[in-house]
């Protein structure tokens, strides 16, 4: 088998959880489907709005649709063979285990810092064996050289980690996309290196 075939075979058997389908989650999902990850579990409670179209992987004719179903449509246009498990609702301490305990890696892609905090603490306490790839600090522009990955055990935090005032420093497609792609890249690294150190 070639290296590429070897990677395809490995990724086809993997399941990745994505908590939140906004700017980070929708773009991470697209990158993982393109990479050939076999199964995604995607959870989000929101619907597509006009303001999302400047950075999220949705289209103007999808306004008002639940993001998870709009994303399903878009991902299936990339690869209809990818298995998608969708949950339209909030991720809570009551359903997080059911949603994500079968995943090999989980991506945190929530919007607000308090959600990021409870989810990170919950995952670390309840599913510590599953790597968690978080996004933190994605607003603004011109910060690409400040974006970094901070790792602590099974926790990976991607972003510039600079506190910004959202009213003055808006979320822009390139910065959000950069962090999303770094998250997706780390997911691949975890899935591939853990399974075949020779890659």
């Amino acid at each position, binding site marked *: 088998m070639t290296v590429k075939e070897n990677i395809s075979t490995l990724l086809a058997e993997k399941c990745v959880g994505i908590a939140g389908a906004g700017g980070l989650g929708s773009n991470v999902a697209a990158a993982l489907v393109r990479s050939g990850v076999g199964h995604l579990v995607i959870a989000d409670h929101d619907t597509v709005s006009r303001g999302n179209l400047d950075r999220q992987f949705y289209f103007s004719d999808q306004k008002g649709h639940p993001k998870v179903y709009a994303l399903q449509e878009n991902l299936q246009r990339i690869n209809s063979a990818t298995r998608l498990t969708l949950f339209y609702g909030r991720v809570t301490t009551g359903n997080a285990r059911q949603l994500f305990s079968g995943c090999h890696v989980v991506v945190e892609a929530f919007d607000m*810092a308090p959600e990021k*905090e409870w989810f990170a603490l919950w995952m670390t306490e309840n599913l510590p064996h599953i790597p968690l790839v978080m996004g933190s600090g994605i607003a603004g522009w011109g910060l690409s050289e400040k974006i970094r990955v901070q790792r602590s055990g099974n*926790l990976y935090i991607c972003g510039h980690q600079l506190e910004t005032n959202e009213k003055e420093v808006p979320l822009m497609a390139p910065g959000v996309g950069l962090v999303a792609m770094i998250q997706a890249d780390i997911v691949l690294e975890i899935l591939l290196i853990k399974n075949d150190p020779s890659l």
Partner: protein
Amino acid sequence: MTITLNNRKETFHGGPMSIARIMEEKSFHFKMLIVKLNGKIISKEAFASTLVNDGDRLDIIHLISGG
């Protein structure tokens, strides 16, 4: 004492210090944080009472909105 703070060696004057004091000295004023001492998550309530010793590894991670 010398500790590893966010993967970097940091030296502080004197002996063991609380996490809260280290955060004060290093100006970590963020509301949303994850703090790990030697790999173990430390809750907010325990920042003032948990001591960091020479050689410890402390990770203080900011969580910023936007997703």
